[in-house]
């Protein structure tokens, strides 16, 4: 029996949109490819099968003094997914994307051919597959260079800023001194306090004898509430309160789990949006226009009255991404969650698209469920060249949607 085509790898299903979906075809579930292949605790070189999650990797490496060189906001993604989406983290300005730390991987094509890819071996296929949304074939294993750390703790400073202009100044300063920076924005604030928020700067804690005890806790949202718990009232109150949280400009220790993965503590957190769910909107805006375009986006969102309690603003570093379809590029990236209110929400996205498009920006495929083909194609000018590297038997719902 031949499985229906096209094929597409499906890891742990943590992408927000349809990059990991494949309506008419067959999904190759990779979670059972969950074996470690080799780990050298002296050099920090780790090779594992592509279905291993970042969480499983952290469990192994952190006690031995190593950390992921780049990590997204959840540790429940697979290694193959991290590679295929060329994910980025709060340290992009200092360390680049995930793909920059990949030393090798194996790609299985639908012909059965196994391609060993390294930055200098099958390098074109390497560049196509990093950030290639799983379309070039099945990634069977990945080798990465880890980052040495002294302990599982982070040293974190937080600082409040009262508007967007202050953010840019503060952020520039923080990027110079800290490997990790990210800001939370109150996207409902307008006028003089438009873009107010809190900047979190962090670094791995230095070697020290006294470390606090850390108790891992986990809560879950047990069921879908009948209506989204995220509405105008709850958002406005949350944002106002969150903005007024006590900041710690003098710094404090924070365990890496709550620092990098605050939402992982709440299983099924997405259920707070009710059964209609949510959209995420994450864009990148080129440096020259980033400040103006960010302000325009925030104005449009504030005006719409729809907003997100997880609005995150960060600037990417200068380091060019490896992948032909990599999202990260110099400029600022704004990420927002919106409860799905149907036409109203999609209408807002059209307005935001116009701003991103005029700025010459792009949206993040890993988090997208609705971008128009034109915006994808203008944001990823290499897409036609990339198409030449797609495995003839592979495709995805996303790819069909954005190349129409």
């Amino acid at each position, binding site marked *: 029996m031949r499985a229906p085509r096209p094929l597409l790898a499906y890891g742990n299903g943590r992408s927000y949109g349809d990059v990991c979906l494949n309506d008419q075809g067959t999904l190759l579930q990779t979670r*059972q490819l969950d*074996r*470690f*292949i*080799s*780990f050298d605790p002296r050099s920090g070189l780790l090779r*594992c099968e592509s279905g291993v999650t970042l969480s499983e990797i952290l469990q*192994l490496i952190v006690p031995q003094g190593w950390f992921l060189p780049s990590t997204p906001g959840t540790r429940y993604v697979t290694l193959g997914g991290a590679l295929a989406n060329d994910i980025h983290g709060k340290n992009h300005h200092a360390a680049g994307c995930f793909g920059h730390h990949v030393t090798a991987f194996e790609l299985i094509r639908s012909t059965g051919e196994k391609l060993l890819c390294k930055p200098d071996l099958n390098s074109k296929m390497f560049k196509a597959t990093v950030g290639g949304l799983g379309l070039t074939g099945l990634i069977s294993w990945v080798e990465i260079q880890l980052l040495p750390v002294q302990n599982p703790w982070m040293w974190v400073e937080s600082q409040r800023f009262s508007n967007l202009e202050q953010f840019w100044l503060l952020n520039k300063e923080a990027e110079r001194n800290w490997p990790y920076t990210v800001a939370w924005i109150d996207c409902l604030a307008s006028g003089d306090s438009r873009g107010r928020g809190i900047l979190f700067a962090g670094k791995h804690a230095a070697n020290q004898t006294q470390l606090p005890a850390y108790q891992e806790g986990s809560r879950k949202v047990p069921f879908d509430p009948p209506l989204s718990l995220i509405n105008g009232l709850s958002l406005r109150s949350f944002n106002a309160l969150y903005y007024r949280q006590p900041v710690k400009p003098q710094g404090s220790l924070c365990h890496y789990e709550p620092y990098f993965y605050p939402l992982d503590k709440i299983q099924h957190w997405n259920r707070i949006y009710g059964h209609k769910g949510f959209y995420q909107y994450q864009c990148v805006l080129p440096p020259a226009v980033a400040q103006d375009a960010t302000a325009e986006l925030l104005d449009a969102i504030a005006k719409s009255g729809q907003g997100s309690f997880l609005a995150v603003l960060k600037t990417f570093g200068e380091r060019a991404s490896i992948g032909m379809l990599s999202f990260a590029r110099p400029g600022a990236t704004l990420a927002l969650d919106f409860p799905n209110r149907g036409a109203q929400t999609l209408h807002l996205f059209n307005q935001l698209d116009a701003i991103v498009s005029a700025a010459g920006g792009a949206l993040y495929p890993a988090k997208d469920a609705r971008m128009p083909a034109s915006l994808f194609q203008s944001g990823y000018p290499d897409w036609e060249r990339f198409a030449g590297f797609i495995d003839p038997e592979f495709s995805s719902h996303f790819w069909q949607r954005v190349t129409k």
Partner: protein
Amino acid sequence: MNSLNRIVIFGATSSIAEHTARQLVQRGASVYCIGRNADKLATIIADLKVRAGAEQIIDGISADLTDSAQHPALIAQATTALNGLDGVLIAHGSLPDQKACEADTNLTLQEMQTNALSVINLLSLLANQFEAQGKGVIAVISSVAGDRGRQSNYVYGAAKGMVTLFMQGLRNRLTPAGVDVVTIKPGFVDTPMTAGLDKSGPLWAKPEQIAKGIINAMAKGKNEVYLPGFWRLIMSIIRHIPEFIFKRMSL
């Protein structure tokens, strides 16, 4: 509590066994893995070595366990490699195609060899070794299918039933010697062995859940363990249906 520091696993390439090995290694155990598929076994041993600390022994050998003549040598190799045994887990087996067995008696007997006789041969040898050392735990993965014969899989069920009954006798014999004999009866588990089946519905469990239950049962020296536990109730009901009704049911 039984010490689980040195464990040999027969059928180590089965998904349940592999997850059990991982969790044992996580607890600091040394593990010796025996499985048929040499490539898969090598992959699993490499994985366990990455997960293990420097002082833990991870080793293994590929062998076809249906060949009972090899059993004494395999047990000796495992015992030497680990410097003695605290426990053993027998996990090898296959899921026969019932219809094919009905059409081919040789296939039926072959399935009996794989799922019952080879296990009983290993158990007989291990029982003597463990009885002599006066401690340890012997665990076997049997099945809820062995609790009652049903038309849909009675070849598999009869083989597992034989193992379950043999284990009862062994438990009775080895308890005075201080050896625990643990029969594991998993229900439906999402593994490659059940790849062809529809796995929707609340009865299906993940192999890592079953592995956790196996280690707990081995450490505590339990007798017959259903995994997950709700299968005890389901099987109790199935066992208590009178035969004159049961024989007309489509199960």
